[in-house]
C-alpha cells in the first residue's frame, strides 16, 4: 500500500494530513495559506512531508506517495473577488439580458442599498445569435453560422479569454451549442469555451446560464492554478496523479477539473462531510448532523444512512450555481462573530465578524468588540495558552474587558452571564440552521448524532445537542483538520444527468432503463479516463421525480433500473414525498424529470492512529480549570485532558475539557464522555 497525502486549502490555513503506509502513522499540521498563489503553501507543506531533514522527522520518498488529493477554494475565491477571466457570452436572440435580470428579484426586500452582484459578462460582450429551439427540442430557427463567426471576431477584438454559450432549450437539443463551439474554436483557438449543455443540461435558463458563465469565467485562471500546482507536485518528484475534491465530495482528476471548474466551488467543505460520514459509519453512527464551526461561519449538513444529502443549487457570492453538491447550509456565525447590543436593546451575535484582522479582542490585533471566541475564553472553556498548541498569543483580560464594556454593563448582567448569553444566542442561530437541514427536509434531528469539527465545533456541540434534543455527540481526532482527512476518505466520483420529463408508466419504463444505460456508458468512459479498473467501478442510480404539475423534484434512489419496474419506484417516491412534504396524492401521475448516475471508483479506506490501548485518564490529566456552565451549575472546577493520552474505552462521567492541537472539546454536567476504539470522543447526553 502506498502512502497518501490529503490537504485542504482554506482562506487562513492550509491543512495537511499524511498517512505513512510503512509506519501506519498519521501526521497532520497547518500552514498559513498563501492567497496570492495557493500552490506556494502547498509546495511548502509537501516539502515538509518529503524533506524531513529540515524538521528532523522521518521522511517519505516521493515515489512512495500513491495518492494525493486536495480541496481548493480557488474557483470560489475567483468569483468572490471578481477575478475571473474576461468572458464573452453567445446566447439566443432576445435573451442577452437574462444574465442581468436574473429572476427579477432583489436580494433584500427592504434595503435598497443591498444590490445585486454585477453580471460576470459585461453587456457589450453578451452577443445574441439568430437561432431558436422549442421546448420539445425541435429547431424553429436554424443556427446563423455567419452570425456566430461575426460574434467570435467581435469577442476576439474585445480580448476575451473565455466564452460561455447558452441557447434556449439546449438541454433538449445541444446541436446548436456544439456547432457554435466548433466555429469559436477556429476563430478563438486559445479561448476557454463552456457549453451550457455540457455544464448543466437542465431546464430553467437563468440558472443554467449563470452556472455556465461562472464555469467559463473561472476556467482560464483555474487552468493556470492547476498548471502551477501540478508543476509543484512534479518538481517534488511525486508521480501520483493529483486529484481534487469537487462539490459532491468525490475526487476528480486535474483534466476533469479543467473542464468543469465550477464543480469545485464547495471542494473542502464537501470533503469534510464525506469524511464525517465515513468516520461516523465506522463508529456505528450512520445518521449524523455535521457541525463545522470556523472563524467566520458555521457549516451544517445531514448524513442519512451513511450518505450525505445532496442539493443542486446554491449561491456563490450572490450568483446561482447549479451542480450536484453536498447540501451544506452555511450561516454567518463563527468564532469571530461579533456580539453587540443594538439600539433597541437586543443582543445580536453576528453576522458581522472580526475575521482574522482585527480578530477577537483577545488576539490583541486591534479588535475591540467582543466575539464568540472572547466569550469562550472568558468562560474558561477555551484556554488561551492551548490555542494551536500555544502558537497564538492570547490576552484573556482583553476578552473580558471587551465583554464587560460592550455587553455585560449595558445589560446589567454579571460578566459570565453576558458571555454565556452570547454563546446561547450563537447556539440558537446554529440550531436554526440544523432545523433547516433536518426538519425542513423531513428528518427528525433527535434521531441523529451531532458530528462536531472545525476549530470551535466541539466547544459548542454539547450545548447545541441539548438545544436540538440530540442524544450523542461525536468528535473525531484533530477536528480542526477534518476536511483534509476527508480527502483521504473520498472516492473518485462524478455525476451524470439527463433531463427526461416523462410520466411514469410501464410502457415507458424500457426508455428509462435505456436512458440509464446510456448514462452508465458515459460514466464508464469517465471512470476509465480516471484510471479505475472495470471490476472496481460502482454506479448509483437516482431518479428526480415529482407529482405531475409540481415544480420541485425529489431525488429517489433506485437500485437497478433494469430490474426495478415502475411500481417499486413509485412506492419509494411516495414514501419519500410523505417524509419531506408531509403528504402524498393517491392516484396522481408521477413525472420523471432527470435521471442521474453517479460513477464511483472506490478508494481504500485508512484508519487514524488508534488511541492508547491501555492506561488511565489520569495519565492524560493536564490541569484543573474553572469553567462556567450557566444555569444551576455556574462555575465548576473541572479536569482538563490531553486527548492524545486518553485510552480507548475511557469513560468519564463528569464535566471536563479535552484539548488537542486543532480544537477543544467541552463536556457539560450530566453528559458523559467515552473514547471509542477508533479514538473518537463519544459524548452521551442524559
Amino acid at each position, binding site marked *: 500500500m502506498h502512502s497518501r497525502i490529503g490537504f485542504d486549502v482554506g482562506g487562513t490555513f492550509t491543512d495537511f494530513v499524511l498517512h505513512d503506509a510503512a509506519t501506519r502513522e498519521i501526521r497532520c499540521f497547518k500552514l498559513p495559506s498563501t492567497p496570492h498563489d495557493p500552490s506556494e503553501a502547498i509546495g511548502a507543506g509537501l516539502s515538509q512531508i518529503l524533506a524531513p531533514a529540515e524538521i528532523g522527522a522521518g521522511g517519505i520518498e516521493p515515489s512512495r506517495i500513491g495518492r494525493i488529493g486536495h480541496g481548493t477554494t480557488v474557483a470560489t475565491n475567483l468569483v468572490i473577488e471578481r477575478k475571473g477571466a474576461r468572458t464573452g457570452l453567445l446566447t439566443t*436572440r*432576445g435573451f442577452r*439580458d437574462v444574465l*442581468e*435580470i436574473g429572476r*427579477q*428579484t*432583489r436580494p*433584500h*426586500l*427592504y434595503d*435598497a*442599498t*443591498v*444590490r445585486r*452582484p*454585477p453580471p460576470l459578462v*459585461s*453587456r*457589450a*460582450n453578451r452577443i445574441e445569435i439568430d437561432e431558436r429551439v422549442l*421546448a420539445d427540442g425541435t429547431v424553429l430557427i436554424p443556427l446563423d453560422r455567419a452570425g456566430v463567426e461575426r460574434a467570435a471576431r467581435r469577442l476576439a*477584438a*474585445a*480580448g476575451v479569454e473565455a466564452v460561455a454559450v447558452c441557447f434556449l*432549450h439546449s438541454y433538449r437539443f445541444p446541436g446548436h451549442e456544439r456547432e457554435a463551439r466548433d466555429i469559436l474554436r477556429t476563430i478563438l483557438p486559445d479561448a476557454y469555451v463552456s457549453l451550457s449543455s455540457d455544464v448543466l443540461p437542465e*431546464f*430553467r*435558463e*437563468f440558472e443554467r446560464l449563470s452556472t455556465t458563465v461562472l464555469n467559463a469565467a473561472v476556467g482560464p485562471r483555474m487552468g493556470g492554478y492547476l498548471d502551477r500546482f501540478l508543476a509543484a507536485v512534479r518538481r517534488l518528484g511525486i508521480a501520483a496523479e493529483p486529484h481534487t475534491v469537487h462539490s459532491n465530495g468525490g475526487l476528480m482528476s486535474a483534466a476533469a477539473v479543467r473542464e468543469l471548474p465550477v464543480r469545485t466551488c464547495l471542494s473542502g467543505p464537501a470533503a469534510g462531510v464525506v469524511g464525517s460520514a465515513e468516520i461516523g459509519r465506522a463508529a456505528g453512527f450512520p445518521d449524523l448532523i455535521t457541525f463545522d464551526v470556523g472563524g467566520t461561519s458555521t457549516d451544517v449538513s445531514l448524513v442519512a444512512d451513511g450518505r450525505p444529502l445532496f442539493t443542486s443549487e446554491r449561491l456563490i457570492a450572490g450568483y446561482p450555481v447549479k451542480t450536484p453538491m453536498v447540501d451544506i447550509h452555511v450561516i454567518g456565525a463563527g468564532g469571530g462573530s*461579533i456580539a453587540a*447590543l443594538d*439600539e*433597541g*436593546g*437586543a*443582543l*445580536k451575535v453576528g453576522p*458581522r465578524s472580526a475575521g482574522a484582522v482585527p480578530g477577537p479582542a483577545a488576539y490583541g490585533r486591534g479588535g475591540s*468588540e467582543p466575539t464568540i471566541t472572547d466569550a469562550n475564553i472568558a468562560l474558561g472553556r477555551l484556554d488561551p495558552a492551548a490555542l494551536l498548541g500555544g502558537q497564538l498569543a492570547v490576552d484573556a483580560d482583553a476578552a473580558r474587558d471587551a465583554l464587560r464594556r460592550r455587553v455585560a454593563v*449595558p*445589560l446589567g448582567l454579571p460578566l459570565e452571564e453576558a458571555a454565556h*448569553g452570547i454563546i*446561547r*444566542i450563537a447556539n*440558537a442561530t446554529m*440550531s*436554526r440552521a440544523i*432545523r*433547516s437541514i433536518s426538519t*425542513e427536509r423531513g428528518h427528525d434531528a433527535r434521531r441523529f448524532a451531532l458530528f462536531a469539527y472545525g476549530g470551535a465545533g466541539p466547544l459548542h456541540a454539547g450545548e447545541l445537542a441539548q438545544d436540538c434534543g440530540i442524544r450523542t455527540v461525536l468528535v473525531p481526532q484533530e477536528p480542526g483538520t477534518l476536511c483534509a482527512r476527508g480527502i483521504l476518505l473520498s472516492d473518485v466520483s462524478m455525476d451524470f444527468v439527463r433531463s427526461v420529463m416523462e410520466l411514469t408508466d410501464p410502457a415507458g419504463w424500457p426508455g428509462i432503463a435505456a436512458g440509464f444505460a446510456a448514462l452508465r456508458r458515459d460514466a464508464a468512459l469517465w471512470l476509465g479516463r480516471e484510471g479505475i479498473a472495470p471490476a472496481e467501478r460502482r454506479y448509483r442510480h437516482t431518479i428526480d421525480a415529482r*407529482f*405531475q*404539475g*409540481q*415544480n*420541485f423534484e425529489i431525488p429517489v434512489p433506485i437500485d437497478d433500473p433494469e430490474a426495478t419496474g415502475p411500481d417499486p419506484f413509485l412506492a419509494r417516491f411516495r414514501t419519500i414525498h410523505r417524509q419531506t412534504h*408531509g*403528504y402524498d*396524492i393517491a392516484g396522481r401521475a408521477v413525472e420523471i424529470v432527470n435521471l442521474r448516475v453517479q460513477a464511483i471508483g472506490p478508494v481504500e479506506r485508512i484508519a487514524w492512529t488508534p488511541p492508547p490501548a491501555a492506561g488511565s485518564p489520569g495519565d492524560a490529566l493536564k490541569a484543573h480549570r474553572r469553567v462556567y456552565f450557566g444555569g444551576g451549575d455556574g462555575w465548576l472546577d473541572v479536569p482538563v485532558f490531553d486527548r492524545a493520552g486518553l485510552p480507548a474505552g475511557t469513560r468519564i462521567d463528569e464535566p471536563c475539557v479535552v484539548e488537542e492541537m486543532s480544537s477543544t472539546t467541552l463536556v457539560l454536567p450530566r453528559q458523559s464522555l467515552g473514547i471509542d476504539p477508533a479514538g473518537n470522543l463519544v459524548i452521551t447526553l442524559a
Partner: protein
Amino acid sequence: MPPAALATAPVADPIAADPIAMEIFSNRLLAIVDEMGHTLIRSSFSTNIKERKDCSVAMFDAAGRLIAQASHVPLHLGSLTGSVRAVLASRTPEAMEPGDAFICNDSYLAGGTHAPDISIVTPVFVDGRVAFFAANCGHHSDVGGSVPGSTSHTARSVFEEGIRLPVLRILRGGELDTDLLEMIAHNTRDFEERILDLKVQIATNQRGGALMADLVARMGHAEVTRAIDDLLAYTARRLRRRIVETGDNQGSFTTYLDDDGYGGDPVPVRATVTLRGDRLSVDFTGSGPQSRGSFNMPRNALEASVYYAVKAMLDPDLMPNQGMVEAITIHAPEGTIVNPRFPGAVGSRANTAQRVAGAVIGAFCRFLPVERRVASGNDVMSTVVFSGPANRGGRTFVYVETIGGGAGAQWDGDGTDGVHVHVTNTSNLPAEALEKEYPLLVEEYALVTDSGGAGEFRGGMGIARQIRSLDDRIVCHARLDGARRGAAGIESAKPGGRSRVVLDKGRPQETQAASKIVNLALAAGRSIRVETPGAGGFGPPERRPPARIAGDLAEGKVTRAAAEADYGAAAVAAAASLVAASLVAASLVAASLVEGTPR
C-alpha cells in the same frame, strides 16, 4: 446608517425583560415560519406559487398580534393580518376546535386585499386553548369572475372579480370539508390547481402549528409568552428610537396613476408623512377619488404598503411584527382610491400599492439626509395574463406574471436595472418553464434601451417582454401603468422612461396599443410586447462622470442620441472618444464601474 454605528449606539431605553431569551426565541420563531414558507413553495402546483413564489406565511398570537412573517411579499402582510382579524371577529377562540382551519379572501367581508389572494388561518392549541394562529396566503392564478386571472382594471365591483369568501371553516376537527373545497374550486378556471394548492396551504399551517406546539413544549408557555411580549416591545422601541433620531419633520409627495381603469385624468396618490416625537403619521388627504375600475385599495393593503415604506426608509432590518405598527397612524379619507366604499372593485390594488409606497418614500425624501434618499422606482405593478389550452392534460391554463422595471437611483450609484421594487418581489417564470407548459413562445426578455432616467446616477432600466401566441385560442390582458409620465427623478435628475404595449412588433401589422388591455384574442403567430417603466435618476445630469456615460454607450444601455439630449453633446463627445479609442477599454471601464457599485 451603517451597521457599525448601530451596533455601538448607546442603550438608553429600558431593555427587554430577558434580551437573551428573546433573541433565542426569535431565532426559533423564524425557523418555524421559514419552514412553513419552504413547505408551501416546494410542494405547491400552480406556477404562480411554486415558481414565482407569490405567497407568504406568518404566525400570530391568540390575540391576533403578528409575531413573525417570513420574507416573501410585503403586500401579503395585509391579507395575512386582515384574515386573522376576520377569523377572530367571526367567532371566539372558544368556538374553535383543534383540527380547524379557516379560509377567506374577500376584502370587504374578511380583511382580504383582492380575491386571488386566498388565506388559510389555522388555530394552534396549547393545553386545550387557542394560543396561536398559523396563517398563509397564496396568489391563485384564477378565482373566477369576468376575465381569466380575475383581475381586470375594468371591473366595476367585487362581484365581477371572482368568488367571494367570507370566513369559512374548511377543516373541522381535522376533517376537510370537501363539499366546500369543490364548490370554491369549481368557481375558478382551473379547479384542479385550486384544490391541490389549497390542500398544500392547509398542510403548511398544520406543519407550522405542530412546530409551534413543539416549541412551547420545550420552552414552556410562560416563557414563550414573555418572549413574545419582549419581542414586540423591542420592535416598537427600536422604531420609536429611529423616529426620534430622525427628528420632527413633515414632507409630502404626490404620484399619479395614469387613469382609474376607465380613462380620464391621472389619479393622484398623495402622502404626507409627519414625525412628531416618537410618533409617525401618514395622511393620504389629497389622493384621488374612488376608482371606477379596480385600482381601489382595501385598508389592509394600504397598511401593508405604508409599513413597507416606513421600514425601508427608517430601519430595513426591523422585524415585521405587531411592534412595528404601534408608532404609526394612517389616515385615508373614505371614498378615495386608498379607502374605497363597498362594493368598489379592488383587483388591481397592487398597482396602487406601489404608488402608495412610492408616495410615502417620496415624502420621506423631503427631509431624510441625502444618503438615504432614493429616486422614484418604476412604482407600478406591470401585469400580463394569458389564458388558453395547456400543452398537456387538456385543461385551461391561466398564467399571470408581474414584471419588474427600474429601481430608483441613489446618491452613490445607478438604480438597479430590471428588478421588482417595493411591495412585491416575485420571481419571473423562466421562458423554458413557460414554453414547456403553455402554447406560448418568449421572443424577447430584455432591458429597455434609454429607459433609465438621466442624472449623475442613472435610474434603473425597465424590462421588455415579448410573447408570441402558438394557439388561436389564447386570450391575454396587459395592465401597465406609467404610460403617461415617467418615474420622478430626484435632486434635479430626469424622470425614467414610460411604459408601452406593442402588438406584433417587427411585423407588418405592428401597432402600439393602449397600455391597459383586457380580453385580447391573440391568434397563433401574433405577439404582444410590454415595456415596463424605468426609474428616476439622482442628481443633475451634467454631473454624470464621462466614464459612466461611456460605459452606458459601450453597453448599449443608452443611445448616443438620448445621451446627447440628456447630458449635452460635449459630454457625450468626450465619453464617445473613450469608447472610440477602444471598445475593449470602454467595456472594461463599464465593468469596473459596475464592480464599484455594491456596498
